[in-house]
């Protein structure tokens, strides 16, 4: 049964995202899509989907939702405080949400972008082959309270809930970087210093993340430099010598020189860095990066191998006394009983 996801309340910046619109670079249209693409592949694994479907992206904000038809949901990305009718739900897992039940999501302690996916995917209108919201181009579906977002029927609502071990990409760390077409425009001193600098995450949006540092601004030679293709992961040095990691909604062409490109596997770590989070850049050779960061199409199979059936954490069992813990024990000699 298809249904609607009812948005009872929603903080600012919530949007529908999928993997975006690849293939329009020649026309100046950014691919866009989820800021943390890995989270959508994780949701696909948890829900048994063949590939990522459109989902809700919640940037450091919360919301309250209901469904009009039963559906499994997956909660991925930045760990949020999730509850169903007031009872906590485990993050990075799938759960069944029934009509009448209220799903509450609130920002957790780390990361930026949390994702709410439905087993049949959100079926908001498609433009240019995708549902992703790209604010700058007026595409997709920004989400606010009172909206009803259609979703596809859950093909297997009775499937057992699944869990993925949390991957720590929400507390900063190393971003592996490969050289790009403009790396050679930076002198050796600047490059060496950039890769030795302890950065902290600064102001960010879906277009980019500023990397703050206490040292002098980075020297860049921009005069007369022709604008060229830019993309998510590129580390741009602005005119004032400020490093910015470009994210999903960055433009297609830019005039600032770029130090290199964060590999796709590490880009969610940049997108998920809250202001103040420590980050550093680690230069790696192209062949090592190719091995370290396999094509996205291979992510699903890798993530699926990590799936575990969701078992309740005893710490979450407020009704512990109601469980018959003893009768579940085995003696070890009952095999033929």
């Amino acid at each position, binding site marked *: 049964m298809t249904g609607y996801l009812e948005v009872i309340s929603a903080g600012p910046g919530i949007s529908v995202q999928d993997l975006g619109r690849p293939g329009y670079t020649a026309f100046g249209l950014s691919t866009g899509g989820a800021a943390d693409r890995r989270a959508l592949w994780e949701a696909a694994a948890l829900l048994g989907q063949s590939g990522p479907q459109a989902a809700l992206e919640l940037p450091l904000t919360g919301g309250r939702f209901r469904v009009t038809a039963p559906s499994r949901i997956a909660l991925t990305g930045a760990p949020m405080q999730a509850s169903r009718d007031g009872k906590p739900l485990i993050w990075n897992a799938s759960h069944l949400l029934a009509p009448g039940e209220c799903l509450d999501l609130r920002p957790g302690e780390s990361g930026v972008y949390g994702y709410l996916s439905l087993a049949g995917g959100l079926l908001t209108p498609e433009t240019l082959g995708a549902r992703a919201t790209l604010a700058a181009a007026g595409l997709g579906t920004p989400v606010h309270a009172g909206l009803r977002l259609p979703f596809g029927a859950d093909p297997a609502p009775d499937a057992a809930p699944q869990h993925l071990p949390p991957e720590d990409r929400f507390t900063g760390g190393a971003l592996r970087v490969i050289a790009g077409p403009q790396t050679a425009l930076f002198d050796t001193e600047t490059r060496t210093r950039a890769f030795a600098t302890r950065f902290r995450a600064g102001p960010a949006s879906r277009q980019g993340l500023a990397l703050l540092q206490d040292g002098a601004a980075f020297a860049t030679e921009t005069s007369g430099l022709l604008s060229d293709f830019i993309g998510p992961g590129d580390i741009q040095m602005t005119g004032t010598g400020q490093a910015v990691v470009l994210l999903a909604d960055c433009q*297609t062409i830019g005039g600032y020189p770029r130090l290199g490109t964060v590999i796709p596997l590490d880009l969610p770590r940049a997108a998920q860095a809250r202001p103040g989070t420590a980050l550093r850049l680690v230069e790696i050779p192209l062949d090592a990066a190719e091995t370290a960061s396999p094509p996205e199409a291979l992510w699903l199979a890798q993530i699926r191998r990590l799936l575990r059936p969701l078992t309740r954490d005893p710490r979450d069992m407020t009704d512990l006394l109601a469980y018959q813990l003893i009768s579940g024990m085995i003696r070890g000699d009952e095999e033929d009983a």
Partner: protein
Amino acid sequence: MSLPEILPLGLDALLVRFSTTWSEAANTAAQRLAAALSADPLPGQTEVAPGLGSALLRFDRLKTTRAAIVGAVRDRLDHAAAPEDAARHWLVPACFGGVEGPQLAAAAALAGRSETTLISELCATNLRVLALGFAPGQPYLGTLPDHWQMPRLPALTPRVAAGTITTALCQIVLFAAPSPTGWRALGRTAFRPFAAEAAEPFLLRPGDFLRFTPTSAENIAMLIEKGDPLGGAIRSFPK
């Protein structure tokens, strides 16, 4: 022009760079290469895009390798046949000066021409789409003679309307959406190069030619009111 550099651009693309500074020849070469690759894609190629002085070539890492695609591009560069002239031409009504082109007078002064002369010169020029970017479908058009070599404004104009014709650096940008800009506004069209809901969302392609045809501000206002993304433009395409 020397052979272009072939450089890695992320893990699944490469950049064929003809020049790092503006050059008409490099821009044309990038458009030719992109056209040739679009017409006859390399195995594993997923996307090709011409830029101001380079072409982007994206590939599927599951179907080919960087080494294979670099080799294939080199071979293509060596044996590129001159493509047939398939240029598409656009004639776009525009109004100049007044509230829609508040910096026309300043631009004319910088160019050392009268406003009328500057506009006649612009409307007599077949501008080529050098690249699309910064906003979906938004064209960089050029190039104009040397006296159009005007710097950007020292302070950003907070907002120009969609369809605004602006200039800097011997180029014209025709804004596809409302935007802040440091370029000087000369006038306005009712042409919407990107309309997501239209049957043809992107009107222009790199390499197209576009010429402005002067009309009154009232006519442009009427065309905007009508809401057709073409904004009264006439096109002439080969075949």
